[in-house]
């Protein structure tokens, strides 16, 4: 199962590299499984007319590397270099890596890249689409709302934002740090076609993402997720934004994933 494979890569590689951002990565495993399991259209990673995917919440790059590894775009050997000296695979994605369309890592930039990519597709009469995964806390960034306005004004219906709404950010819960509610209403007020979905229900994600119309509004799929999903002691815990795992924690986490798979 693709999502489980992504989660195992997240745990294995972050353990080997002794790095954090594990909870943020686990949060989007099912979203990436839906995208790479059938939603995204691409003949090859460098096909000019491929659908574009921008991971604007770049700190979850390992989840994306896991997805690209699972579909054979990132080799096992390359994946094993994650966070090693001189590796192109760091904790944030860079476009030189096969399958990575845009480099990200600073929040609030990705949706503007996506607006340009979607506008270019329209100007080139291409039916390729652009998907941008943003975090809910990323919606703190004012620049994101510049892009939200631009996409609506230019009726970029070939653009889809997916908000990973796990309700957490680095130092606290979003409702306590800078309350975003009603997030759905805010995007709708800015002229977007809004969909809400369980961000861990792959079937629901796939059907929502596959059935977006080509009307005259950009789409946002607000995916309700659980930070750290799949590893019980990480779920909804602020501290797992940064902590790496101990050996015991790693073994427990892997065992939990395998139990869920069985």
């Amino acid at each position, binding site marked *: 199962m693709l999502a489980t494979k992504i989660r195992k890569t997240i745990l294995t590689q972050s353990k080997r590299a002794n790095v954090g951002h594990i909870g943020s990565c686990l949060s989007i495993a099912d979203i990436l499984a839906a995208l790479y399991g059938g939603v995204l259209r691409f003949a090859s990673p460098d096909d000019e007319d491929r659908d574009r995917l921008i991971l604007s919440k770049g700190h979850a790059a390992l989840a994306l590397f896991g997805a690209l590894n699972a579909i054979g775009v990132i080799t096992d050997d390359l994946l094993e270099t994650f966070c090693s000296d001189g590796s192109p695979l760091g904790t944030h994605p860079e476009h030189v890596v096969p399958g990575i369309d845009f480099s990200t890592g600073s929040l609030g930039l990705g949706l503007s890249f996506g*607006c340009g990519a979607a506008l270019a597709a329209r100007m080139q009469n291409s039916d390729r689409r652009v998907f941008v995964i943003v975090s809910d806390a990323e919606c703190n960034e004012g*620049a994101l709302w*510049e892009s939200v306005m631009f996409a609506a004004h230019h009726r970029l219906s070939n653009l889809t934002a997916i908000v990973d709404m796990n309700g957490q950010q680095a130092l606290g819960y979003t409702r306590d740090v800078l309350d975003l509610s009603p997030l759905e209403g805010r995007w709708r007020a800015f002229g977007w076609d809004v969909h809400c979905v369980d961000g861990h229900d792959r079937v629901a994600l796939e059907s929502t993402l596959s059935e977006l119309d080509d009307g005259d509004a950009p789409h946002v799929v607000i995916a309700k997720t659980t930070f750290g999903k799949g590893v019980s002691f990480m779920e909804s815990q602020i501290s797992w934004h940064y902590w790496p795992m101990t050996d015991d924690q790693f073994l427990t986490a892997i065992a939990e994933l395998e139990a869920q798979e069985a």
Partner: protein
Amino acid sequence: MRSAFIQSLVALAERDPRVVLLTGDLGFTVIEDFAERFPNRFFNVGVAEQNMLGVATGLAEAGYVPFVYSIATFATMRPYEFIRNGPLLHGLPVRVVGVGSGLDYGPNGITHYALEDVALMRAQPEMMVVVPADPDQARAAVVATADVRGPIYFRVGKGAQSIPELGGRFSPGRADILREGRDIALIALGPAARIALDAADLLAPLGVEAAVAVVSSFNPSPTEDIAGLLDRVPMAITVEVHYVNGGLGSFVAEVIAEHGLDVRLLRSAVHEMPRARSGSQQYLLEHYGLTSRAVVDSALASLALDNS
């Protein structure tokens, strides 16, 4: 110079279908010609410079050559991180067009004075920086850089004054030596060439032979040309309408230090933040010592000091 720049851009867009123009809701009476001729390649993105740079990045990734247009301060500082993590990081041909160099926007005040744009852009190793000295050089620069694969920053002055001595030449990475002289070298950034040339004219009857060079590009920077020039003189003054640190004066200081040259350097530039000091451009230039007369005085004082 703005109009010359845009005329050249229109001509470029006629030849090159990749050229797109984005504006952050600025360019009244300047950009209309492009907008009318190429309505499908012109976008007023609104007063949102960060998104403008991001959109340009997305367009460039798909094969376009976007020019983004705003006042130099708004084009460079507000979206600085977008420039760095967008066109620079991705190695894409986005052209950042900043209008109003230095104190061009006189009565508008400090928010409109581009006094650190060259420093900010020059600090990025792969950002070509182009500071045309006059309208003819601006035209030449648009043509000469049409196929540059990475990003470019154009600092486009509002002035229309011509520098006939330059003959409209532009070569990235080269300095134009407009005049030879053995006593002192006056090195000017873009349009400040006029100040330097006039200062050289004033120095000649006083028995001081001043060389004059104009620098119009960085990254590539005219390191060899400037090192060669400074090897022949005991003293140099840089002239730039920019803060004193990070721009042309700093570049020349780096060349002197790294080549171990035996030359004294004075930097004519803006030394303080122009707070609550608006006025005509001419008033501001005089206040900050950026006139030919002030350069002459600096030269004479330094030469006297040097001889004592």
